[in-house]
């Protein structure tokens, strides 16, 4: 269940292009930063415009001091608009929202698969693993080298690209399967495109505790609209991605297969 959250007008400190079409914006957000946990998200909306109308969900990418950052790929109206804002301009943040990844514990080994904008969680997870004393290994996939954000983290990071321009030539789950032959993590986390999550659920879900951050359309992010159902496994009922998730134990949910 979601805990306390704030609606905060946050000032943009800076925005940098971190990889192809991929930006990281840092915002001053003193209320949200101290209480956010890895895997939680913020809903971002604009002042003084009806276009876009609804807030956009972004995983918190990092949170330290009074600075919160988000990482996003500029694909549509919301992200393109955020990427074009100047330092000093304002966004409205609602957060932290949702249920993040489970607490990490000292000495535990956790493997984290990320793909595309799912890489947003790398910095915040590294930071909290550092605090908790767990061991992280990142498996980071993208279509091509140019789309990989070069994070400055100490954790081991393996890359995979569809076109073979960096790291393993192929998809990230295949790479993990290879590496899993010689090791057994305590938990697996995943954040990225749905096909990646589906494949993680299938490959690891039944043998390793696997936690997946799912992405669904969301109108509110707060449990107001019932717009973000995620099928409960073995049940006709739904979870709400925004409150019960976005991170779910992979055994709890079913992905709907498009007809």
């Amino acid at each position, binding site marked *: 269940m979601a805990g306390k959250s704030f609606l905060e007008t946050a000032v943009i400190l800076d925005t940098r292009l971190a990889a192809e079409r991929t930006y990281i914006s840092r915002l001053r957000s003193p209320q949200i930063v101290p209480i956010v946990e890895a895997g939680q998200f913020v809903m971002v909306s604009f002042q003084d415009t009806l276009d876009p109308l609804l807030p956009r969900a972004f995983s918190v990418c990092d949170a330290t001091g009074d600075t919160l950052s988000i990482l996003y790929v500029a694909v549509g109206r919301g992200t393109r608009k955020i990427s074009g804002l100047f330092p000093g301009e304002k966004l409205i943040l609602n957060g932290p929202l949702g249920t993040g990844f489970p607490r990490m514990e000292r000495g535990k080994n956790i493997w984290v698969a990320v793909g595309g904008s799912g890489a947003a969680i790398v910095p915040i997870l590294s930071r909290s693993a550092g605090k908790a004393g767990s061991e992280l290994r990142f498996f980071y996939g993208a279509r091509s080298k140019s789309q990989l954000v070069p994070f400055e983290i100490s954790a081991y990071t393996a890359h995979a690209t569809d076109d073979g321009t960096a790291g393993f030539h192929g998809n990230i789950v295949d790479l993990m399967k290879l590496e899993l032959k010689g090791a057994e993590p305590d938990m697996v986390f995943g954040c990225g495109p749905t096909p990646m999550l589906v494949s993680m659920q299938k490959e690891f879900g039944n043998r390793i505790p696997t936690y997946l951050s799912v992405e669904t*359309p969301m109108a509110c992010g707060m449990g107001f609209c*019932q717009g973000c159902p995620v099928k409960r496994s073995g049940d006709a009922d739904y979870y709400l991605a925004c409150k019960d998730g976005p991170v779910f134990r992979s055994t709890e949910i079913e992905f709907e297969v498009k007809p």
Partner: protein
Amino acid sequence: MPDMKVRIGDLELKNPLMTASGTCGYGDELKGYFDTSILGAVVSKSLTLEPKVGNEPPRVAEVACGMLNSIGLANIGVRRFMDEKIPILDELGALIIANIAAKRVEDYVSLAEMLAASKSVRGLELNLSCPNVKEGGIEFGTDVKTLSNIVKLVRKVFKKTLIVKLTPNVTRIEEFASAAEAEGADGVTVANTYVGMAIDIYTMSPKIHTVTGGLSGPAVKPITMAKVFQVSKSVSIPVIASGGIFTWQDVVEYIIAGATAVEIGTLLFTKPDAPGRLLKGIEEYMADRKIERLSSLIGGIRFDRDNVPHMNHHK
């Protein structure tokens, strides 16, 4: 502090701001963002006799100045609402209006009977207009006789304030409003969402699982404004406006057009703390213009009947 009180039937609201059904869960979710007791009323998600899981995803999609939804009346059922949510709302100091939906006429009556028994439920809003369920729903709302029949039967068992929420997807909404009035409704809500649709041109699939969904948000405001105006000229019971309110100016505009109260929906998704600011804006507007009672603004539009094409149709 100007007087913002308005009446619907026997019910006095401290101000005209209500939440719109289905846009703040059961109302209890609002408390993290503002003091719920500042609202005129909280309208619950549409309640059904049995819990409903709702439609498959995707259920929501953004469009220009609006959104489509097809939730399919997902809700915890009337029983759990009464047991779990009413006590919370009572504690928050919210004035509760329960919104109900059903596929069968008898079920509306059963729901109304159950809710009539709760002291905390001060009014009922009949959702005869959900565009996203396969049976009942919109059919009820687009047939005047069925509407009359449901209102008549519910009126018998529910003596408190009874509001009928109308669908806008009809040629002459005034006929439905008049039918509700004739059967004893205390007010009509104008209106539910508009049947709309959006397609992802890359996958060629509809953006909503049910293909069509209900359009809400600022996009619909001018259409709903015209309907509020027309209905308010056709009935003498209060009209509650619902559609695209995003600013305090929108609230004032609806009231001048003829609304007695308003419901805030989609706005809550973007600015869940908006109600306080809306109330403040209205207060300042009234103070600037030395308007003492909000009720004196209702239907205050200055217009010449001869100029309106639609008002001359039946001459």
